[in-house]
């Protein structure tokens, strides 16, 4: 005959087996952009739950408030964003509204990627007549794989500081990730040699880190001033420039307006190349490496065509 305690025991066990592991054991990571959510998943494994506030088709400069966004911020243990003013239009409001102490500026849970890399295009000028210039420098730092290493190391430090019990787990994951990444980086660097000097026109200064890594030649930007839609006069001058200077491709992100690039392409014959720029919002481990693979493959085919 079953005793009462054994029945209860069986029920408790069944409940444990059926329900997912307790949420408290997992750290909640709130990423502003999908690339940081992807990196967090690589390094945090199943001990974190990462969420990205923006998707791959969205310009991270602007987003609209949804109730779930506030809910995610309220539960976050770590905030993982680009920084450098990229999210200035919405993140401060969201942080204030969420009221979560551990992810406020200055806390361990507040990680801004560009504070841990060598920043490009830093300027002391805050003259807004120059356009949407971030005085902190260009914030689009993820497209240099060496930056991924530095930012990933910092993220692991923050993970460990937040959850010291998992030190061994996070350290092992970081080492495994960095080892694999290092091997891929060698292969990418080998492929990059053929791309060096490739002349390109870009829509926005979204690609500066990629361009520096691959040693491409940025001939011009479609936006005369960052963040301000290209003017007709500027496009005309680019058209003139393209007649004297060879250009392999006009590089745009999936969320840039394609009109200026298409206009210039139609007049000059330079192909428009849409590079993925980032991973999907629910990227799984491996997708970050695929982003670099795809970017290289697309650039190689554009380079070969000219």
């Amino acid at each position: 005959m079953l005793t009462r305690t054994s029945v209860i025991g069986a029920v408790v066990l069944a409940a444990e087996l059926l329900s997912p592991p307790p949420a408290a054991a997992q750290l909640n990571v709130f990423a502003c952009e999908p690339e940081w959510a992807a990196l967090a998943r690589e390094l945090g494994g199943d001990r974190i739950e990462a969420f990205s506030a923006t998707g791959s088709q969205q310009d991270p400069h602007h987003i609209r408030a949804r109730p779930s966004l506030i809910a995610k911020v309220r539960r976050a243990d770590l905030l993982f964003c680009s920084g450098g003013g990229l999210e200035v239009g919405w993140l401060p409001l969201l942080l204030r509204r969420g009221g979560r102490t551990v992810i406020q500026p200055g806390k361990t849970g507040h990680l801004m990627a560009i504070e841990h890399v060598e920043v490009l295009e830093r300027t002391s000028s805050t003259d807004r007549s120059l356009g949407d210039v971030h005085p902190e420098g260009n914030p689009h730092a993820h497209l240099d794989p060496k930056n991924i290493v530095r930012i990933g190391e910092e993220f692991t430090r923050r993970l460990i500081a937040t959850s010291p019990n998992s030190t061994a787990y996070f350290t092992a994951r970081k080492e495994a990730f960095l080892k694999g990444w290092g091997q891929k980086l060698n292969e990418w660097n080998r492929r990059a040699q053929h791309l060096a000097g490739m002349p390109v026109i870009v829509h926005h200064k979204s690609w500066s880190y990629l361009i520096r890594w691959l040693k491409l030649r940025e001939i011009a930007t479609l936006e005369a001033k960052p963040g301000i839609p290209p003017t007709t006069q500027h496009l005309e001058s680019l058209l003139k420039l393209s007649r004297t200077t060879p250009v392999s491709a006009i590089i745009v992100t999936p969320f840039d307006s394609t009109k200026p690039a298409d206009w210039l392409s139609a007049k000059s014959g330079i192909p428009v190349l849409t590079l993925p720029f980032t991973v999907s919002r629910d990227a799984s481990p491996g997708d970050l490496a695929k982003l670099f693979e795809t970017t290289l493959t697309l650039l190689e085919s554009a380079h070969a065509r000219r």
Partner: protein
Amino acid sequence: MPGAELLEIVLPPLAVGVMVALVHAPMGIEVLRRGIVFIDLAIAQIAGLSVVLVNTWRHEPDWLTTQTFAVAAAILAAFLFRWVERKLPREQEAVIGSCFILAASLALLVLADHPQGGEEIQHILSGQILFVSWPAFFSFLPIYLAGFTLWYWTEKTRTGLPFFLVFAIVVTSSVQLVGVYVVFASLILPALAVNRMEPRKDWKAVGCGVGAIVTGVTLSAFTDQPAGPMIVVTLVLTTIIVRTFGKTPDR
């Protein structure tokens, strides 16, 4: 989302929505009666233009400076529109509409070279009601309390210059809290819904406005959509329902 957390997310926007609806509904009846429905857009845009100008002139002005300039511009607009009402009573809607597009176009011209000013005007115009926090609610509360009290305390508030002044100051605050679309909808739609439902039209309008805004914020929470556009939709639906099924007085 757990219930308690959902409440904490939804309560500040709900409080703001109810506060705005309480003051807007009776004002909307007056606006509709005078046939000057574009006046809120015009005043919001003129306040926005002044904020843009401050932003291009001074880097990141503080909250008080921004408010001072926005309210000062709105008051100037109030004087202008009162003057237009007296001089050109039959063409005032045309003048008000033209002021709206002029202010909008001037802002675009000023902003052509200043993208962060663009973010500023975006905030002024589109407002993000879900981002409104309790401190913001309490800092704007005195303006609505004063507007509400004045409106019901003396009939004078509903005529002449006092109307334009109270209206300008309230709209300038509302636009920053909930955005211009919700301001327009919460003024005009409740008034439109109860337009043929004398007597006590203003309280019926308040009921429509508050009901629609509470429904809109609640729906936004359950469907996880931005709250502003959702409120506009629920206000329109409320108006259609009230106009269709509401009791009209016997002729």
